């Protein structure tokens, strides 16, 4: 376990809740490790399962998908679809030998800057314990 190691996290943040929550964290000057690489999507339901797998193969140590809380989706029920796909991806990762702990789905609203910071910190610490992603850069698809 290397304390200095900063994992690479790809964060797919939905435009309406989680991206705004991340902005709020910044506006509130909440400091966090520079582990996150944000990719903005309009809705968490835009996150194709393939994005997650590709991110892991391309070298991400962890993938975070963050969307609006259940019942608060800007597109009515996109986050429910995201949740289902996420469950599917997780079992798929397990079956194919990836470490399913490397992917995480979180709900962060536009008003939850602190929650966003905590999510990033917790996930970063978890990934630090897991170490580098061994599947990284092994295969290119």
């Amino acid at each position, binding site marked *: 376990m290397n304390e200095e190691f900063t994992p*690479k996290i*790809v964060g797919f943040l939905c*435009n309406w809740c989680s*991206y*705004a929550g*991340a*902005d709020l*964290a*910044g*506006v509130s*000057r*909440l*400091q*966090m490790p*520079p582990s*996150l*690489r*944000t*990719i*903005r*999507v*309009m*809705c968490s*339901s*835009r*996150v*194709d*399962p*393939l*994005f997650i797998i*590709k*991110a892991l193969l*391309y*070298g*991400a140590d962890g993938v975070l998908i963050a969307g609006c809380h259940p*019942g*608060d989706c*800007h*597109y*009515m*029920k*996109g986050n429910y*679809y995201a949740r289902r*796909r996420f469950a599917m991806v997780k079992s798929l990762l397990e079956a194919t030998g990836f470490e399913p702990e490397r992917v995480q789905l979180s709900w962060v609203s536009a008003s939850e800057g602190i929650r966003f*910071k905590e999510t990033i910190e917790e996930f970063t610490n978890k990934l630090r314990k897991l170490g580098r992603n061994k599947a990284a*850069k092994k295969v290119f698809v």
Partner: protein
Amino acid sequence: MKRIGVFICECGPNIAEKIDIDSIVKEVSSISGVEIAERYKLLCSKDGKEYLKEKIKENKLTHLVLGACSPKQHEKTFIKVCEEAGMNPYLCNLINIREQCAWMTPDREEATAKALRCIRAGIARVKYQQSLEKKYLESNVDILVIGGGITGLQTSLLLASDARKVYLVEKNPDLGGMVSSFKSLFEGGNVKSVVKEKMEKVLENKNIEVFTNSEVKDVLGFFGNFIAKIEKDNKITEVKTGAVVVATGCSLFDPGQIAKYKYGKLDDIYTSLEIEVMNMGGRIVLKNGREPQSVAIVHCVGREEKGYCSKICCSYSAKFHDYLREKNKDVEIHNLYYDLCTSQFERGRKDISVTRISDIEEITEESGKKHIEYLTGDGKKESVSVDMVILLPVIEPGKNVPELAAMLRIPLDARGFFAEEHVKLNPVATSLEGIYIAGCVQGPKNILESITQSEAVAGKILCSLIPGKKLEPEVMVSRIAPSLCTGCQTCLSVCSYGAIVFDRENGICVTNEMLCRGCGNCASACPSNAITHKHFTSRQIYQELTEVLYPSRSMKEQK
């Protein structure tokens, strides 16, 4: 030939102090395709915008990458700058190096590295961004209002003007709806001013065309361009409207469905609506013509069965006390309820006594009196004998709601009422843009709430359907490639807005760009990869993904 311009905003001290902008500028200038990379003190200022426009023209830039604040803050500002400089705004990529970089990374070196990574990813992505054209659509500003009750009347009056015609459709012979059979209102105010005057005003208004004894048979089209068929006396009238307001109200649960209430079996058992009608006739009397000396008001009839509280019955029952005591001040009134839900109007009343029950066991007739046996809240068996029983049935959706919902292509909620798009964010809109719901059609409501909703609907319509102004539908919509679509209809099943239809003739799915809101759900659901979510295409996202993780791999490929 792509000519990319990269501009980093100092944002006063906000970015400049936290990030080494010069090193980023130096680093990105060498990336292929980057024509110019510069820093500027404040891009969103008046001077900054002029500076950008000049640079775009001077360097004949085709693509723009801006390292500045959050797109949620200034994306619109820079879209406008691009348009004014004659550049397609969808070829601009605003990279957030302030909120999500400078402001949250404590270390200057790390923040610089993160910002550089984000900007490189932005450059990689912008190369794959496509110019999208805004569409402008002529729209009809007329409105179809379904339901001539208090909500429909209010909406029609608010919307009708010389520039906007309203078609008001009512299935009954008269306007006024349920409220017109009430003598008084528990919220205060009298029915005459609330309903009658509105009815008269509607009938006098030359911009409101009233169809009574009529039904809407079909509604086709989309926001700004609906075509509705109205049937009256077997004759169909076709009207063109821009929006549809559904205000068909509600109906009452039929207590006859529950045997223990003996409704319809024994005399002198009435529903609340029957009491209102009887009271309008002048007197509340028993079948034998005499005034009742004792009355039991049974609340929450059907609540168990329907599974929800209709929230206004407790309040309006207070009014029945006044009706009964007006004629006979000594009348004895018992209230039997499961759950009490009174509004501020009744809270102060000391003249009403209530008994909490957990179940009505039986209602029988004994020597001309109704004998009610019930279990109290704590399970004791008690009974009461009265002359008259008033049942307060729960409010349920109107009988024709399922057909209406299917015709309008909007969903119902678990209770069977019309579902709003979002209970907090969009309470009077539905999943189909341009179709609004107001009043009890959306769930039990008092008159105050119904009127508030009709005003909300009017506000929504007045600010979106403006005479002479064209509509601008969403540009970042989904597109289904006909050659790749297998017609499996997965996308159709995941779309919340009914924006995808199946083209039977060709066996493929097609997006209706007017209805699509651009969430991208269908694009990630498509098993054939046939769907492109414009401005968020998989290719664009992969470029960004590769670059943030594995710098320069994508860059080398392009060189």
